[in-house]
């Protein structure tokens, strides 16, 4: 379910934008089948390629080309579970050790259970309005200062490169340009970690590090809550959960909490500028938004 109309035009003054997803009433193979329907038909679906499979295909090349390791991917899970344990609205509020993540069962090699986001029930929404009306409802509005969107071929095999999500890179560039900033100005980011490799690729696509250095970025602890650029303070799709339709605005909600100093135990000190990065399919579509507190 998606509600909302653009509030930048005169059609609407206030809009609620949100999503709902109910996933846990189905078995894992059933959910795997339903999710796979968002991939290329028939070339990917008729050959048994799943969503973990598509991101595994990206991970294999990332490992081969850049030397990214399974341990570095597991470190994304350890970090995000640590953050999720601090989030009372997360699906899985508990820490995992590197050993546990590394020894979990294989879903689509090289991705293991703890490399995959959760099958979650959830709902989220945000209220959007024009800047001149916002003060009627809150003393602490958060402004959307940048917005970018781009699309690409739906089939992974049709894309030039498998180690980057080009649509996210383009969307990011557009959002940074509109906001008049670069990544150095960001205080906090929520990225689409549907799989641990996806977070590593997001670091690279958003300019947090050079292509191929995403694994090192997480290994060096630069994306923890105390790090240089805290990523997925909510726990991310990995630990907070991934109720697909609700994920986009849930990311915006976490940034809202951070920029209004309501994130409690996972608060990033003095956060003023935040970013959300959301990907559809294996990279067929991506949106990036930049937010700033008053």
């Amino acid at each position, binding site marked *: 379910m998606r509600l909302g109309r653009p509030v930048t035009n005169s059609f609407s003054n206030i809009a609620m934008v949100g999503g709902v997803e109910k996933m846990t009433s189905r078995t894992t*193979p059933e959910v795997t*089948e339903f999710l796979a329907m968002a991939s290329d038909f028939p*070339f990917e679906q008729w*050959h048994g390629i*799943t969503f973990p499979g598509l991101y595994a295909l990206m*991970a*294999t090349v990332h490992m081969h080309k850049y030397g990214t390791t399974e341990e570095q991917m597991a470190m994304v899970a350890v970090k995000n579970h640590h953050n999720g344990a601090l989030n009372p609205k997360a699906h899985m509020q508990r820490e995992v050790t590197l050993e546990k993540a590394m020894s979990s069962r294989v879903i689509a090699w090289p991705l293991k259970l703890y490399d995959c986001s959760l099958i979650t029930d959830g709902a989220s929404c945000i209220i959007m309005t024009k800047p001149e009306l916002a003060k009627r409802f809150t003393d602490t509005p958060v402004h959307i200062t940048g917005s970018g969107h781009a699309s690409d071929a739906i089939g*992974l095999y049709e894309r030039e490169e498998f180690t980057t999500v080009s649509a996210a890179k383009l969307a990011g560039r557009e959002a940074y340009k509109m906001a008049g900033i670069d990544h150095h100005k960001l205080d906090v980011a929520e990225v689409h970690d549907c799989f641990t490799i996806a977070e590593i690729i997001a670091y690279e696509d958003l300019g947090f590090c050079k292509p191929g250095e995403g694994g090192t970025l997480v290994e060096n602890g630069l994306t923890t809550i105390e790090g240089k650029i805290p990523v997925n303070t909510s726990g991310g799709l990995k630990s907070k959960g991934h109720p697909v339709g609700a994920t986009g605005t849930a990311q915006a909600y976490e940034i809202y909490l951070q920029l209004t100093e309501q994130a409690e135990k996972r608060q990033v000190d003095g956060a003023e500028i935040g970013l959300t990065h959301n990907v559809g399919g294996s990279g067929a579509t991506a949106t990036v938004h930049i937010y700033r507190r008053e």
Partner: protein
Amino acid sequence: MAEAHPFTIESFYKYVSEGKLMAAKCSRCGTLHLPPRSMCTECFSTDFEWVESGKIGKLLTYTVIHVSPVQFQSMVPYAVGILRLQDGLNLPGMIRGVKPEEIKVGMELKVDFDRTLPSQWPVWPRYFFRPP
């Protein structure tokens, strides 16, 4: 020819059932399209001809699926990958006849055709990759 086999994915799979790997070649700029399209993405021409693609390629990437959709559960674990064919086309598909631990990025594989259609759903003509 064009009437018998319009430039659609359905036609591509009809060719697969005949043991042929066919791509649509733009008659104007020569770009090869797999899957076939109704319009060339390079020059917007709508004139195509079918050309048979070479069957040998190099493996660009692969994975081994352990948790599958319902209809593939009897096959797990199975390997899938993306093959770069000699004429530059990419094709995703299952890899058979190699142990998962022996699959390597860059290895040479050949497109082959499965003539035995499974008795239960999903039923379709399949191609797959195997060592040459």
